[in-house]
């Protein structure tokens, strides 16, 4: 009963949106039979009409956009109910509703305007640097998310759920930083070795759940969750060891990575964007090639779609599982390494990788587990982060709101049937919206 009949779909992209909606809604209401199926036969629609119809259909783009809108509406509600002054105006709403509406609008619009100004463009910018600053911030936050997002997406396509991107990123950042301040190497080479060390750190941390899954069948979700925390504790232990801790400090912070191991900046000094974003684009291209053009990618997708069939066809499932997790780990490790090699920080602290691993899961889902989709999703999340900082300082709306928005967007994306029902969208013909795997432990 887990896999509803689906005529010979070779790819894991599960049920079409229509099917998913039918199964989801079928429990309570009978879907009106084929009401949307045949309007095209009667009259050839104009191009404009076709465009409009598609715009309001439940395709990937529309659902993503509407999810964003829904998330922002919920975010606005949260802002209003958590502001006692604005809330007070609702006490006499029936007497003078304009007060409440004005105050709410002022609060919400100021917050979201700053979110936009901090991430895309500030119309008040006078210098070139100020004009480029939001984009630069966005790109800085985007780069590591691309890597962790790709890590999760790659594993997803192979049928594995990599919740361990966080731990892999931590191991990556540890090795990258150690190389960064312990090995005295010439410029160029130092950076290269540090970046590779980051990849190796993540790959090792990905290898463990991979080999356990392949050898013992231990579920990778459980193991990767556990490894995340082991990595956290390892990091907090390592930071305060001799030779690692900054000798001039007593708190938990490591020595600084040498300048020769830092990623070059894209613009002049106050702008933080660094070459990590270029690596991110290259990585996206590489993963896209790996998935769609290479033998390994084919085997990976085959194993993801049906491990038994893949095994029957002569693909070594064991080897593929291990390779998937090693590659996924290496990607997450690369993402983590940017947290010290880029401009975000130059030294290890207990929270040096922030949430990039967990955010990577959201990014992968939002990007519909496709490489370029992941890159776009990471861009959106990076923009939210960058804008959130400005929102916090200019509109005094806590940065936590960004976490709420991100989580809500993904919740709505993951349940397209809900978005469809809220906005009364048409069923799109060829949309594939379900990203879920639904496998359990």
């Amino acid at each position, binding site marked *: *009963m*887990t896999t509803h009949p689906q005529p010979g779909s070779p790819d894991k992209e599960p049920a079409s949106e229509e099917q998913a909606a039918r*199964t*989801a809604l*079928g*429990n309570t209401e009978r879907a009106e039979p084929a009401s949307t199926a045949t309007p095209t036969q009667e009259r050839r629609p104009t191009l404009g009409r076709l465009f409009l119809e598609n715009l309001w259909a439940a395709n990937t783009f529309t659902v993503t956009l509407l999810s964003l809108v829904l998330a922002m509406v919920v975010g606005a509600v*949260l802002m209003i109910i*958590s502001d006692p002054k604005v809330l007070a105006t609702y006490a006499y709403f029936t007497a003078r509703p304009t007060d409440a509406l004005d105050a709410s609008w002022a609060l919400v619009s100021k917050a979201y305007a700053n979110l936009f100004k901090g991430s895309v463009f500030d119309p008040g910018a006078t210098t070139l640097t100020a004009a480029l600053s939001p984009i630069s911030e966005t790109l800085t936050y985007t780069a590591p998310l691309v890597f962790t997002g790709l890590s999760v997406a790659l594993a997803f396509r192979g049928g594995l759920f990599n*919740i361990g991107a966080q731990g892999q990123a931590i191991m990556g950042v540890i090795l990258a930083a150690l190389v960064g301040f312990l090995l005295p190497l010439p410029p160029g080479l130092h950076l290269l070795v540090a970046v590779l060390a980051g990849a190796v750190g993540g790959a090792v941390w990905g290898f463990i759940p991979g080999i*356990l899954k*392949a*050898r*013992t*069948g*231990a*579920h990778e*979700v*459980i*193991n990767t*969750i*556990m*490894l*995340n*925390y*082991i990595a*956290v*504790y*390892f990091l*907090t*232990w390592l930071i305060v060891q001799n030779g690692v801790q900054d000798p001039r400090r007593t708190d938990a912070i490591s020595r600084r990575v040498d300048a020769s191991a830092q990623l070059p900046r894209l613009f002049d000094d106050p702008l933080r964007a660094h070459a990590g974003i270029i690596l991110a684009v290259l990585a996206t291209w590489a993963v896209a090639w790996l998935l769609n053009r290479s033998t390994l990618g084919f085997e990976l997708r085959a194993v993801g779609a049906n491990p038994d069939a893949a*095994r*029957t066809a002569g693909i*070594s*499932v*064991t080897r593929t599982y291990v390779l998937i997790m090693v590659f996924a780990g290496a990607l997450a490790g690369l993402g983590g390494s940017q947290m010290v090699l880029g401009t975000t920080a130059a030294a290890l602290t207990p929270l040096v990788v922030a949430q990039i691993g*967990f955010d990577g*899961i*959201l990014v992968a*889902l939002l990007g519909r587990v496709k490489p370029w989709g992941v890159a776009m999703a990471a861009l959106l999340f990076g923009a939210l982060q960058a804008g959130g900082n400005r929102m916090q300082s200019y509109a005094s709306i*806590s940065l*936590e709101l960004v*976490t*709420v*928005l*991100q*989580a*809500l967007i993904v*919740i709505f994306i*993951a*349940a397209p*049937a*809900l978005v469809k029902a809220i906005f009364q969208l048409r069923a799109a013909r060829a949309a594939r919206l*379900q*990203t*879920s*795997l*639904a*496998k*359990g*432990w």
Partner: protein
Amino acid sequence: MSTTAVPDVAVAPVDEGFWTRTRKVGLVLVALGLLATVLFGALATDATARFTLSEDAAGAALEIHGTFGAVLFGLITLAAGGAMLAGPPKRWFIPLLAMGLVGFVLSFLCWQVSDAPAGQNFMPLVNIVRGTFLLALPLIFGALAGVLCERSGVVNVAIEGQLLMGAFSGALFGSISGNVWVGLVAAAIGGSFISLLLAVFSIRYLVDQVVMGIVLNLLALGITGFLYERLMQTDAARYNSAPRFSNWEIPLLSDIPVLGPALFRGNIFLYLALLLVLVIHIGLFRTRWGLRTRSVGEHPTAADTLGVKVLGLRYRNVIMAGAVAGIGGASYTLALFSFTKNMIGGKGFIALAALIFGRWSPTGALLAALFFGFADQLATYLGAINSIIPGQFLAMLPYLATILAVAGLVGRVRAPAADGKPYIKG
């Protein structure tokens, strides 16, 4: 079809030969025993290791010579390992394993306590036991929430979020109303709110349950963090000063040495946790509801055929689980601390580990939670006596133990068959 009969290479523990699981574990115990006897024995000092039956150095104590104790208990572990290598009957497995592990821990403690700075060669058992239960509390509640959910076939990775939301709403509404009981109910409702989202999205909209759990954790983190900064930080007196449950002393029982002061002078949450373990255990294995819950978690189609309302039962159990976890969160804010951002800090995931390590059963979850709580308390104790063992490595123990457990090294853990699989009628 006969040509495609390819042997299954991935998972097949068929014929184990000489190296049965018992012998493998025995080998591990022998290694641990040797380590304890030789290393701990050599490192332990001449000082007397005292395990006092009170909260400080005073009073009656169990005393043992440091080196002698470390070697003696190491040899016990060695003996248990040796007995396992001999291939005893199956029923000896658990007792021998327990003996071996306890011996190892005691040997370790003899070394650590005797090696502590002069004047600190004692371990106050009351503190240790009380701390163990205190630290295990959120884990017990969280793991029980996991049991309720997963036994009916819904994976609950959102324990962390449920605990956090419970802690938050307990603090918020407890403060506003000034009443602990209102706070307790609010905490249960807060936890259920996250659960409700999990239920609706995973049961009705068929979203992957692990995905949903992860996202809900982030959502809870975001919402509580946001409202914390907006409300509690600006006006802590009004929004973040919840009243606290006082400790209830149980007559007679509280006079038992060690266990009495540690266990029977606790607050309501301690009693509630132990009671819930009992209730859920009896409920799951002795009542009609339990039979139905387990059948829905193992084989929903069969249950449906027999007239069990699969989806309704799942909704109910998931929401109940949220209430249990919510109360667990309140065990922080309505008894110990005021709310802070991300105050659960990964306890929800240790609870998940306890659930898995305890093999999806209430009593197993309790034991696992206590074990993890003990590791946590031990880390604190070792920090206090300036041990050379870093606390971070002890903190890793729950996670390592779980990895070993699911890898099948310490017995096989198996989730309910339909755990995580949405049920589509028809």
